[in-house]
């Protein structure tokens, strides 16, 4: 078989450059397999070789989307691969968004791409139409099962082989419908499904109803000077020492902390518990995430009626959508009860 070229995209961590302190690293490339790429190579067909790895910091990619995209596009044009493999990103949101964007760039260049993500990674929803995303577990512990599936699919794409449906190949649905011949006509299949459903038996729908989590925008506030404003954050700001032990990732709880009488959040009084971004800047000045100093001044100037005397906080780092929804419902109910009419949500 003809030799095929594979290029891998990795973040700064898997690319072996460093941790969160290196998240601002711009795109760079090396002409060999690195980190998970070494394991991936073992799972590729014999005619496929990893000829290069593109590495970029998760922070840099998401904060400089245009510059990062231009650089990655240029590197892909130089490597001229037959397939691109991005990640796997598991449930890392920024990494997933970067992998998805790399897939989109490859798609624009006419190169097929594969990634691996946990279904709740925002990269899935945002980019799945551009690349194949193998379903993975939510952490790097799932690397061992992710690489064989990603390698197999990447090999097929590089060699131009036909790709089967999502359940068969292990990728997440791309929302694409393909015509196939079925043994039974539609009416019979529909009755079969209905009977299975009525009997309480397991069944697989042929057309899942898409789930769009959208809410009607709230009405605009007419006079802020009469309104109580609250701050809620997923940036993990907590009183120094993290008294409620909110976890650095996959938070199982949220906190509610008093800012009554405080003109600012000091480094002595507050810090971040978040494990998914470089904490240096938030620890130096927690107002960078929960802007108490600015809101207090606007309160004194009469621009807002009142700053709510508590802020709510959790760590948005691999936190499950189900948990996030639960915290949001509880927090929103309390805020409504307390007469808060405006909320500023801040995310890192």
């Amino acid at each position, binding site marked *: 078989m003809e030799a095929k070229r594979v290029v891998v995209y990795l973040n700064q961590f898997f690319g072996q450059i460093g941790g969160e302190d290196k998240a601002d690293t711009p795109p760079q490339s090396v002409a060999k397999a690195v980190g998970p790429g070494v394991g991936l190579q073992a799972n590729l067909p014999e005619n496929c070789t990893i000829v290069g790895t593109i590495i970029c910091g998760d922070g840099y990619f998401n904060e400089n989307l245009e510059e990062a995209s231009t650089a990655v596009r240029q590197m892909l044009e130089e490597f001229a691969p037959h397939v691109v493999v991005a990640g796997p990103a598991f449930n890392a949101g920024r990494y997933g968004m970067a992998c998805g964007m790399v897939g989109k760039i490859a798609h624009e260049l006419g190169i097929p791409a594969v990634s691996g993500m946990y279904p709740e990674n925002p990269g899935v929803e945002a980019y799945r139409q551009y690349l194949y995303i193998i379903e993975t577990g939510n952490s790097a512990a799932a690397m061992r099962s992710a690489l064989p599936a990603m390698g197999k699919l990447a090999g097929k794409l590089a060699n131009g082989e036909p790709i089967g449906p999502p359940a068969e190949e292990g990728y997440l649905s791309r929302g694409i419908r393909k015509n196939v011949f079925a043994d039974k006509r539609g009416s019979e299949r529909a009755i079969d499904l209905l009977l299975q459903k009525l009997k309480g038996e397991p069944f697989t729908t042929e057309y899942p109803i898409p789930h769009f989590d959208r809410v009607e925008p709230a009405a605009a506030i007419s006079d802020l000077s009469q309104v109580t404003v609250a701050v809620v954050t997923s940036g993990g700001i907590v009183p120094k020492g993290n008294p409620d032990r909110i976890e650095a990732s996959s938070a199982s709880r949220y906190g509610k902390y008093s800012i009554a009488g405080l003109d600012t959040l000091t480094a002595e009084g507050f810090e971040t518990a978040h494990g998914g971004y470089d904490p240096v800047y938030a620890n130096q000045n927690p107002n960078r995430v929960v802007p108490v100093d600015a809101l207090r001044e606007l309160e004194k100037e009469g621009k807002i009626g009142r700053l709510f005397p508590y802020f709510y906080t959790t760590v948005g780092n691999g936190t499950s959508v189900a948990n996030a929804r639960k915290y949001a419902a509880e927090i929103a109910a309390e805020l409504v009860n307390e007469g808060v009419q405006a909320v500023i949500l*801040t*995310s890192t």
Partner: protein
Amino acid sequence: MHVCTVTPISLTVGANRIVPAVAIPHPLGNPKLNPQEEFTLRKKLVEKALQALTTPVSEQHVFES
């Protein structure tokens, strides 16, 4: 309303009023500025957030600078 740096994530999760922030580890600040300049930047961002709350929207909207 949502102040965040990675606005595509905010759009994906369904926020309706979105104000782009400075950077992931310091959404409402910039450690390269002196404290007074940084405070001014933060106050402007918060004012922009408040302005978003007073602006009628019928669908998801990113309030670009």
